[in-house]
């Protein structure tokens, strides 16, 4: 890498920003944790972490006008990485225990509870990386740390040429669900790369490698 990528971890009050920032530093990024709009727009990459309830995360994002920052970046083709609930809120809706919440709607579809006898899906699981995935290059067979009960279980967006097809990475717990999506400038992982030991750091480094 010729220079370290400047990354903003969006600080909007949802848990674990600290771990994400430190893991990104370990992966080689120059990291700022902030909700400052100018900094978030200007960075080479924006990371949107998220833990907790879908509705709470959406509300917290709105409180810092995070959806505008994300929209602006994506409209300009500037990379964004969502993590865990930070991935889920990129979809149109989330339904958790009867609470139906509007997401940011970057992708169509609804985040719903996994059809598994034991929830949360908690621990280290394998994934099936999508064709052309940059995030999983060299770590296709590694395990990643998941902790969630809800997920996007369908991909509904048809991407037409000249836009490249998204790389869809699936995992299974009770049923198949999206473990990661790489769709143009917007990428997201349902698992926690910042908690996935060396494999997670490698994934973050792979993402940094895609930044202009």
């Amino acid at each position, binding site marked *: 890498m010729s220079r370290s990528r400047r990354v903003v971890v969006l600080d909007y009050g949802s*848990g*674990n920003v*600290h*771990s994400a920032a*430190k*893991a990104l530093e*370990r992966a080689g990024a120059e990291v700022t944790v902030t909700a400052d709009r100018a900094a978030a727009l200007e960075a080479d990459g924006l990371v949107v972490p998220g*833990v*907790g*309830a879908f509705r*709470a995360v959406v509300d917290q994002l709105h409180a810092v006008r995070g959806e505008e920052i994300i929209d602006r970046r994506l409209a300009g083709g500037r990379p964004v990485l969502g993590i865990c609930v930070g991935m889920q809120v990129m979809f149109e809706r989330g339904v958790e225990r009867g609470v139906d919440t509007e997401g940011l709607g970057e992708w169509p579809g609804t985040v719903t509870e996994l059809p598994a*006898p*034991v*929830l*949360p*899906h*908690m*621990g*280290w*699981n*394998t994934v099936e990386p999508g064709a052309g995935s940059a995030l999983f290059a060299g770590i296709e067979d590694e*395990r990643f*740390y998941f*902790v*969630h*009960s809800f997920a996007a279980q369908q991909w509904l967006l048809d991407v037409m040429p000249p836009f490249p097809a998204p790389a869809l990475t699936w995992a*299974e*717990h*009770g049923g198949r669900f999206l473990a990661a999506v790489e769709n143009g400038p917007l990428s997201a992982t349902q698992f*926690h790369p*910042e*908690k*996935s*030991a*060396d494999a*997670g*750091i490698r994934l973050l480094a792979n993402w940094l490698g895609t930044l202009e």
Partner: protein
Amino acid sequence: MSLAVRVIPCLDVAAGRVVKGVNFQNLRDAGDPVELAARYAEQGADELTFLDVTATVDDRSTTYDMVQRVAEQVFIPLTVGGGIRSTDDVARLQGHGADKIGVNSAAIARPPLIAEIADRFGAQVLVLSLDVKRSGRTPSGFVVTTHGGRTETDLDALEWARRAIELGAGELLVNSIDADGTKAGFDLELTALMHELSSVPVIASGGAGTVADFAPAIAAGADAVLAASVFHNGEVTIGEVKAALAADGRIVR
């Protein structure tokens, strides 16, 4: 399903240092927490659990700083338990890098705390820790204890586990007081009963003495196994436990 079973070392901490002692007596320093955590992570620990055994508020904030130093350098999930009484405690610990919070006696004293934490942070953050003892006083034959097993409550352990899950606990850490310290193996009957009733993952704890003790706990239904002294004393390594689990047909990382 290809989810790996988890092997979790548990470290007691006091005033920001990892300590060793028998039944919380004669605590002595056991090393730098960041170094120990990094060593376990390198050996393949799937998560780390810190149990804060300090008594004072000042010492507790030292522990919070320690959690932060570990979280900054060791990139596997961290659970912190001990002395957590409110959602603000959870927020503070999460802010210092803890991923999951173990709650024990405060939830017994005030069960709605479980729902308060789950509502604010999600069920996945909350590990309900139960210190369980065999007893003729409760219908299931297992009673919940406090103070490291010295005080019996009136709670039937299985009933309490069911209620805690309903209230929003995302995981059960089931520690057998009878087995704890015996090095004679996990309480398999208790593990199986908890597995049967639970819709959330179950961590078996207490009694591990040899590498052969872990596979039966998984066979009894545990999703994860937790141990302290066998790892700290170097009697068994995480790698050896995982090899034994794999030999028993379990999926490990």
